[in-house]
């Protein structure tokens, strides 16, 4: 192993081809992962940021927030279910907004809420026609103190503060009072006019010690099947396109990792062929096959880690020049997943050379 590290230090250019390929693959993997996370984060923030464990939809809505309707009677039934500590209504209207000084409309998900989400203080209080805007809207020119003209009726709503990570279906989170939301929704979609007290869904906070699955079952039972209750994670996965998006990007990422393994395998197979003479001498001097093979694997792992570092820096630079329409989010857990994937695939790729290393004949060193 020590020998492998010394060679890496003294002859780094020997590994430049494999390293360069892995740097480019790292950029591709981080870009794909960043795109996946960006799409996911900007589609699901509204639901992920809810503090309640369960989301209750009307059963005929097929788990769609836009289609769902929960009226006060159903809400009262939900609140009577065992394990329910509190409920809060939520509703969303996907509309455009005119930001002062900006020529383009900004996409907003105007959300009426009763229970604060993660990034809000517990005693949050808004007046009618006031909003807390998602911090990501700063990039579109939104600022605190502005009046954004919202929806078809161009309702002026004043931004009074920020929230984080609350976007919904790629539209910037814009949290308002339930009445303001109902008005914006009615102005934009007259057919979707909702009476006071009716929401699209309910967020349910559980009583201490209550099991989420049991409470979900109890809620749907007590409403006689009028509701479909999902855990927060299930509700996120039920959003349109989320599952398909995750599985498609994940498949591309796994294929790219497989390609990285193939490149490392090919490179070290060629390097091993080139080094057969050296390995036979080392074996003649008393090196064992595991010692030599260990050196090969260590080299592959170090090349993968160093390539990831360079690729990561390149991706960070690239992320700064990407247009804001490209929703790339660089998330540490994704970076860890990719570096672990690269290291594992590189080690497996290098392992392809094991058979050849084992078969090196020490006697060939002498004749």
């Amino acid at each position, binding site marked *: 192993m020590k*020998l492998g590290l010394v060679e890496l230090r003294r002859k780094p250019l020997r590994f430049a081809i494999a390293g360069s390929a892995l740097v480019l693959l790292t950029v591709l993997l981080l870009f794909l992962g960043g795109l996946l996370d960006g799409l996911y984060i900007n589609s699901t923030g509204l639901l992920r940021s809810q503090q309640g464990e369960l989301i209750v939809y009307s059963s005929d809505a097929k788990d769609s927030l836009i289609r769902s309707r929960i009226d006060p009677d159903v809400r009262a039934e939900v609140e009577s279910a065992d394990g329910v500590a509190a409920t809060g209504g939520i509703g969303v209207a996907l509309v455009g907004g005119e930001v002062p000084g900006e020529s383009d409309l900004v996409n907003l998900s105007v959300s009426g809420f009763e229970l604060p989400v993660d990034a809000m203080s517990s005693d949050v209080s808004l007046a009618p026609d006031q909003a807390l805007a998602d911090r990501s809207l700063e990039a579109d020119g939104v600022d605190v103190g502005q009046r954004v003209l919202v929806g078809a009726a161009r309702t002026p709503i004043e931004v009074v503060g920020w929230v984080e990570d609350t976007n919904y279906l790629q539209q910037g989170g814009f949290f308002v009072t339930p009445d303001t939301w109902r008005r914006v929704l009615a102005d934009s979609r007259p057919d979707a006019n909702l009476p006071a007290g009716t929401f699209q869904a309910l967020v349910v906070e559980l009583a201490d010690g209550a099991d989420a699955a049991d409470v979900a079952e109890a809620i749907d039972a007590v409403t006689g099947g009028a509701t479909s209750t999902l855990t927060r994670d299930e509700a996120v996965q039920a959003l349109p396109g989320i599952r398909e998006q995750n599985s498609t990007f994940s498949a591309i990422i796994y294929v790219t990792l497989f390609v990285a393994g193939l490149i490392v395998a090919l490179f070290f197979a060629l390097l091993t062929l080139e080094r057969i003479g050296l390995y036979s*001498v080392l074996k*003649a001097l008393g090196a*064992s096959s595991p010692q030599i093979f260990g050196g090969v694997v260590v080299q592959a792992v170090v090349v993968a880690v160093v390539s990831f570092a360079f690729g990561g820096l390149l991706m960070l630079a690239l992320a700064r020049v990407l247009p804001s329409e490209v929703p790339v989010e660089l998330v540490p857990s994704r970076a860890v997943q990719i570096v672990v994937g690269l290291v594992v695939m590189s080690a497996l790729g290098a392992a392809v050379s094991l058979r050849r290393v084992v078969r090196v004949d*020490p006697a060939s*060193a*002498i004749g």
Partner: protein
Amino acid sequence: MAALELTDVRKTYTSGDAEIVALDHATLEVADDEIVALVGPSGSGKTTLLSISGGLLTPTEGTVVVGGQDISSYSAKQLTQFRREAVGFVFQAVNLVPFLDARENLVIVNDFGSSRSGSEAKKRAEKLLDELGLASRMDNLPGELSGGERQRVAIGRALMNEPDLVLIDEPTSALDTKLGEQVMELIVSEVKSRSTAAVIVTHDQRMTHYADRTVAITDGRLGAGRPAD
């Protein structure tokens, strides 16, 4: 106790239906501090004998005892350990590790497995290189050394783990006569000063007088040894 005892050693290879005899009932004994020159034409079995003596090949028949260890039926793993601890090789092509400096080329032998600590190995490597006249070249890579200097590093590497037997393959083949004589003098002096045994394979009759005894080999058969001139 002899450093090397080959008794009725036979080594055969098969090529299709034919059996090729590389070594034919070879018997040879090399004393503890004896230097034996093994001479013979190409294909006579010199390299096979050297390889079997050094645990690089196993004999088809016969026994091989090195430093009191009967290695005739050792497994590949046992032979690896044996080579690490009991023999030193000087290869015809020198075969230093190109990306290690002179000192590291000696220490690497220790790294494969030795009771000697890293700092002890480094000190021993430096002492050996100093004795070999390479005190100022320890930090140089093989590519920065002359042919004679590389040969001396290879000799140091063979002696690094204080072997019972040093096996040297054509040490002067790539050197001119003067340099070849210097290298042979150095080998003899280093081997003799440690009371170590050595077998030197050479086709150069001019170098045989450095050995205590010369043994000829032809068609895999050893001739009667004769003292050096």
